[in-house]
């Protein structure tokens, strides 16, 4: 059994935020019908990574990842016929996910006011860059613009070099994934409430606000004057010698902030003579730039002789918070990920059997997993809308 079994969701989304939101619901067992442009499909079908030279609508690794477990129905929402069908079937659905804009929603009669009048039981979730009514200087954006407008980019990486540009988050779509989580959470909560009230509601998610809310702990201290509000690129940082360092076969991350870490380090390193001149509590109380530099210099020297996984294992046993900076291959080989079955194999008609990342939660009664590969374009045209995809 799955948590959201039986819920019927119509996905109008055509970008990563909405498609990821739908994927999260699909992994919980909801029936997601994805509406796609006839013969063309979602724009994410045209984005990489691709399996090889083939870049047709059925070969995108991005689409395959974002749309596991969904059904695809082709419907031209720009035509009156298509909209008529859409209006007819809408009543069969519990919820709608969209990530276009307010004009598109109005054209489909899915804006908040009309939904409240015409579809009182429907939950509609809209995800956009800056909300549905953005100011004039925020009408056009890609994820990179959203990330850098959120404050995160300006403070990335930690210890930023002011001569180098602020850095984007990992990968292409971090703001979209963050917003997708928020959208899915709000949709399930709204459907939970609907079971009692019988009423739906309109949910409006702003990617930028989601990112800003993720730094609540720091922003609050700045607003209250406990932390300096400044134009320093390092304003979010914690200081100290912590950071990413090279080792024999890659990189490690080490966190050092307390006397216990220092004590552990003393047992971990081969050469500890240099440590004698440091006060035991220097990390907390006397963390000078000179000490940070000297500490890092000795860490780098030691790490040259170490491999990332060995160093991490030794360090963890001594209470030193040192971990490998993993890459894709490390994750696939990780005994922990294998134990938790984080990757699942699915067979796609065009991409063949591939492993897919799953979800970060294990639910004992209703496991959340991608149940089927992403649909081919229009794979469920026949039954799709009429029977809610059944």
């Amino acid at each position, binding site marked *: *059994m799955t*948590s*959201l079994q039986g819920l019927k969701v119509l996905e109008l989304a055509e970008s990563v935020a909405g498609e990821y939101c739908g994927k999260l619901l699909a992994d*919980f067992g909801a029936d997601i019908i994805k509406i796609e442009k006839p013969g063309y499909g979602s724009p994410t079908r045209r984005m990489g990574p*691709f*399996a090889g030279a083939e870049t047709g609508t059925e070969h995108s*690794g991005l689409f*395959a990842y974002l749309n596991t477990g969904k059904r695809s129905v082709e419907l031209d929402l720009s035509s009156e016929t298509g909209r008529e069908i859409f209006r007819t079937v809408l009543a069969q659905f519990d919820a709608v996910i969209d990530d276009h804009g307010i004009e598109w929603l109005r054209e489909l009669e899915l804006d908040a006011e009309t939904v409240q009048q015409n579809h009182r039981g429907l939950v509609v979730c809209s995800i956009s860059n800056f909300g549905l009514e953005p100011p*004039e200087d925020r009408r056009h954006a*890609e994820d990179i*613009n959203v990330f850098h407008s959120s404050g*995160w980019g300006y403070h*990335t*990486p930690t210890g930023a070099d002011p001569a180098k*540009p602020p*850095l*984007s*988050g*990992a*990968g*292409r779509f971090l703001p979209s994934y*963050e917003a997708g989580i*928020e959208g899915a*959470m709000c949709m*399930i909560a709204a*459907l939970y*409430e609907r079971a009692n*009230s*019988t009423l739906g509601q309109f949910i409006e998610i702003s990617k930028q606000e989601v990112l800003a*809310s*993720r*730094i*609540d*702990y720091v922003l609050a*201290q700045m607003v209250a004057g*406990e932390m300096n509000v400044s134009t320093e690129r390092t304003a*979010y940082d*914690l200081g100290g010698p912590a950071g*990413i360092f090279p080792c024999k076969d890659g990189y490690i991350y080490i*966190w050092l902030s307390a006397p216990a870490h220092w004590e552990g380090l003393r047992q971990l390193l081969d050469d500890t003579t240099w440590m004698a001149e440091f006060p035991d509590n220097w990390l907390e109380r006397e963390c000078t730039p000179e000490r940070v530099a000297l500490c890092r210099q000795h860490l780098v020297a030691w790490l040259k002789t170490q491999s990332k996984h060995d160093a991490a294992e030794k360090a963890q046993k001594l209470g030193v*918070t040192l*971990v490998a*900076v*993993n*890459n*894709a291959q490390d994750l696939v080989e990780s*005994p*922990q*990920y294998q*134990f*938790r079955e*984080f990757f699942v194999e699915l067979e796609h008609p065009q991409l063949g059997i591939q492993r897919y*990342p799953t*979800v*970060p*939660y*294990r*639910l004992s*009664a*209703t496991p959340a997993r991608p149940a089927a590969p992403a649909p081919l374009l229009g794979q469920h045209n026949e039954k799709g809308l009429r029977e809610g995809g059944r």
Partner: protein
Amino acid sequence: MTGQLRGGPLQGVRVVELTKVWAGPYTGKLLAFLGAEVIRIESEKSLDVTRFYGVDDINKAPGFMAVNPQKLSVQIDMKSKEGINLILDLLRESDVLIENLRPGAVKRLGLGYDVVKAVKPDIVYTSMGMYGNEGPLAYQTGYAPCFAALSGLSSLVGYENQPPAGMNVRYADSTFGAAAALATVAALFHRRRTGIGQYVDVSAVESMTSMIGDSLMDYMLIGYIQTGYGNRHPEMAPHGVFPCVDDEWISVAASDDAVWHKIANAMGQPALAVDERFSTLAKRKLNEDALNQIITTWTSRHNAQALATELQALGI
């Protein structure tokens, strides 16, 4: 509970928090904002660092207040049998437990899932750990940047052809908390329909990996291990962050040729749009260094906000 309450969607749900620092409390905050009654169990003997770190008054720490609004707080001595019994009494009348204590700590306290389930069979018990609760590495602990490093996420943040730089040190806890809140709400939904509670085991490292899922597909499909590529994007150019006057920066992205043409016009160099080096995405990617240099020369003369407003008006 019947009728139309129409408070937050989780109105009527009671959540108990056995949490520390940021990730667990952030989960509780999201549930509180959705309308749940959230009760945080605290103890003066093991006070949360965010209550006293850098402030004089434990009741006025801005960081703590930002991550714990709308919650109730109860002091219970968890080191006494009486205290544990009080917590079990509370859980008997609650719907959700959120915990992010160190691995194994809730069991040692006598508050493991089995014990709680015995007094409250339909509890939704959400446990948050760096690596989740079970498995060969579940014993390991770390802080937010460790989650990011272990997840593959840090390796993707960096300048072109440079070592990984990682996200800001503050990234990870809140995202982990949001993933836990999502799973908790899904479990509540199931419970409302079936009366069945469950154990929800959330991994911080996997939460971070979920932020780079599409990058991993590159490895799955063709064995390619992605690394950081600065502010670039394989399917857009220009796509970057460029310097303006007064040490400010502007981010500019062209999703297609049409936007690129608008940028070239805005620069007052319309010929660039059809320049042999930049006329298609493939060519712009091939000559991206030169492209970025031209854009840098242009943005360097402008005020970031004024230029952003001007470009937005042009549909960029």
